[in-house]
């Protein structure tokens, strides 16, 4: 147990872990993550299988990467605990009486005689030190006085505060990993949707896309209303970078699209042997409209923005963009279906109409339009406040560690008649150059003052 503790308290382990985690992270940016097995086979051929087995294709969420992060966290905890208890002891119960001969071994030191008796010398030294913001503790043994002066003690704990921050961030990461969830909500205007795992609903009142004069998108804005017990309680316009937060949930403007399930379709009816015949019908999905002057009714059952026939012969949409718009129409005559099939906006001469009964009518998909839908990402992340707290510790710790260097000065004074022998020594973990000159200034002003 003790040797295990010792193993985990070594900085060498930290360095090895950091190197491994860094290299693994590099690998994870080179191999595309979380793609389909087919893509890996296309890319890596016979190596694909091995990469997937080693979880290199989902590296950051893999067990072994998590274990590495866990070991690093453990290492940080043990290292910090190992260093912290002697540090705390030194902070709160420092050794006050350090003999001159022990001070004399410090790197930054000075020894001289002051032609002044012990007590006034002590007052002088204390005055000089406290004028430089040192806090002083003193003890006396017969004709010897020991001063222990220090300042910016928090700087000495800077690295520990940084490490605490990192641990809080890792903890927050674990909480997020286990407890957070996010999903997309697809809204058309006016729609109310339940928010999963919440006791409120969300309604999209309005969705609009704003454009710059040059044509680029300026912003997507969704006006949302929160409903609780069927009553509206909150109204907010969200846009990219300005989400809505409510009861631990956050709603983001994530994407948008066309509501192709509810388009308006304009169909042009013509006759094969009568070129003067031309009738336009405006239809919504499921609606049946009579063709003017004819005994035929037409309806649209389905609209596909980017028509394609899949490998298995199934009809799908390749994308959500209207690249190859197609509509499935039906014709009825006295409650009898007489034809049905696909017509295409880009290929007016081509159709896949199936006729049950002879007709000389032909149809073209003339125009179509759809309302916009707003895709809102809802998320709940119980770890996020840990992250911000951890970041705060991290930054404060870095500032203390680099810009609040702690200083420690020990002075041993021995009264010899009406003279005092002064031995002073200083310790600084960081920015030793500035401390060395400060120390020189201090001893110089002790020497000179009367």
């Amino acid at each position, binding site marked *: 147990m003790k040797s295990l503790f010792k193993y985990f308290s070594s*900085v060498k382990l930290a360095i090895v872990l*950091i190197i491994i985690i860094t290299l693994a992270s590099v690998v994870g*940016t*080179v191999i595309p993550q979380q793609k389909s097995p087919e893509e890996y086979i296309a890319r890596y051929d016979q190596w694909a299988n091995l990469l997937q087995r080693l979880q290199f294709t989902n590296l950051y969420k893999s067990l072994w990467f998590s274990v590495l992060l866990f070991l690093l966290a453990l290492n940080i905890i043990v290292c910090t605990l190992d260093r912290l208890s002697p540090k705390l002891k030194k902070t709160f119960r420092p050794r006050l009486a350090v003999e001159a001969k022990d001070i004399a071994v410090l790197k930054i030191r000075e020894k001289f005689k002051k032609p002044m008796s012990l007590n006034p010398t002590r007052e002088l030294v204390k005055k000089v030190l406290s004028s430089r913001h040192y806090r002083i503790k003193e003890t006396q043994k017969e004709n010897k006085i020991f001063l222990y002066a220090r300042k910016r003690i928090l700087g000495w704990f800077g690295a520990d505060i940084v490490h605490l921050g990192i641990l809080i961030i890792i903890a927050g990461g674990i909480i997020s990993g286990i407890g957070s969830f996010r999903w997309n909500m697809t809204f058309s205007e006016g729609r109310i949707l339940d928010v999963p795992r919440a006791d409120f609903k969300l309604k999209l009142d309005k969705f609009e896309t704003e454009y710059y004069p040059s044509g680029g998108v300026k912003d997507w804005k969704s006006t949302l209303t929160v409903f609780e017990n069927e009553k509206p309680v909150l109204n907010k316009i969200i846009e*990219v*970078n300005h989400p809505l937060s409510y009861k631990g949930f956050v709603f*983001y403007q994530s994407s948008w699209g066309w509501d192709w399930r509810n388009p308006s379709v304009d169909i042009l009816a013509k006759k094969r042997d009568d070129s003067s015949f031309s009738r336009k019908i405006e239809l919504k999905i499921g609606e049946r409209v009579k063709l003017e002057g004819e005994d035929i009714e037409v309806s649209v059952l389905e609209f596909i923005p980017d028509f394609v026939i899949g490998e298995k012969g199934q009809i799908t949409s390749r994308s959500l963009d209207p690249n190859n718009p197609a509509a499935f129409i039906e014709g009825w005559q006295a409650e009898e279906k007489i034809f049905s099939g696909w017509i295409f906006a880009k290929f007016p001469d081509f159709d896949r109409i199936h006729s049950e009964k002879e007709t000389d009518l032909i149809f073209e998909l003339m125009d179509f339009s759809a309302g916009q839908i707003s895709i809102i990402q809802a998320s709940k992340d119980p770890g996020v406040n840990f992250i911000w707290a951890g970041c705060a510790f*991290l930054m404060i710790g870095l500032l203390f560690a680099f810009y609040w260097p702690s200083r420690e000065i020990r002075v041993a004074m021995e009264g010899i008649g009406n003279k005092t022998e002064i031995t002073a020594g200083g310790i600084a973990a960081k920015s030793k150059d500035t401390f060395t000159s400060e120390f020189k200034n201090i001893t110089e002003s002790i020497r000179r003052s009367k």
Partner: protein
Amino acid sequence: MNESTLFLITFVLYIASAFFYLSFLFSKEENTAKTGYFFAWAGLIFHTIALIWRTIESGHAPFTNMYESLSFLAWASILAYIIIEMKFKIRKAGPYFMLIVIGLMALASSPLMPKEATPLIPALQSYWLWLHVSVTLLGEAFFGFAFITSILYLVADAKENEGKNPGLSAEKLDSVSYRCIAIGFPLFTLGGLVFGMIWAYKAWGSWWSWDPKETWSLITWFVFALYLHTRIVMGWKGRRSAYIAIIGFLAALFTYFGVNYLLSGLHSYA
């Protein structure tokens, strides 16, 4: 007068600065270096005006495409150089640093970089753009300086081993590298990682998604964390520290540049 004229004047001033610094390397006359320093200051002033001009004209932060961000990085580098020069008096490293600045300016003015200011896409419309990018790039500028002083260290160390006088002592270069990283590391942590996470949470709904840019920022951060731990805890100095600082800057460079062109991800702006 317009922004591109100001940019050109700035570029000329930087070239003048580099010219005087370079001739200082040969002439060893203190005054030539002072002139170089003066031109660096003049360049910084004109560059600042150019950036403000661009901000007013475009109505948004001057780092939303590659041209702008390169120009801003050059500005941050000059700022970093002047801060370092004032603190550590390291004029002999000036010529090398000016060459990097000129490289950045040359890249920015190359025809490959579209210069016109385009309106901001929705994802970039946030004050976090200012905080995230400016602080990160300033941190990277200090890493850049540590990179230069580390290379100069390796050269100086080799010279000292041969018994020659390297001009700038290896020990001083080693210490300046550390001090640059001590400034750059907190800035990079704050701007790149902390502000980045906050902004990602506000814009994408997730504070960390292992996007290549995020991951490479973390890799860069890890390399410098390694530098600090080996140095402060294990007492590494000199050559080994210099190598880590060089690797760290190359990682930062890849985060800034390489990720955009070689890897794809969420962070597809600059």
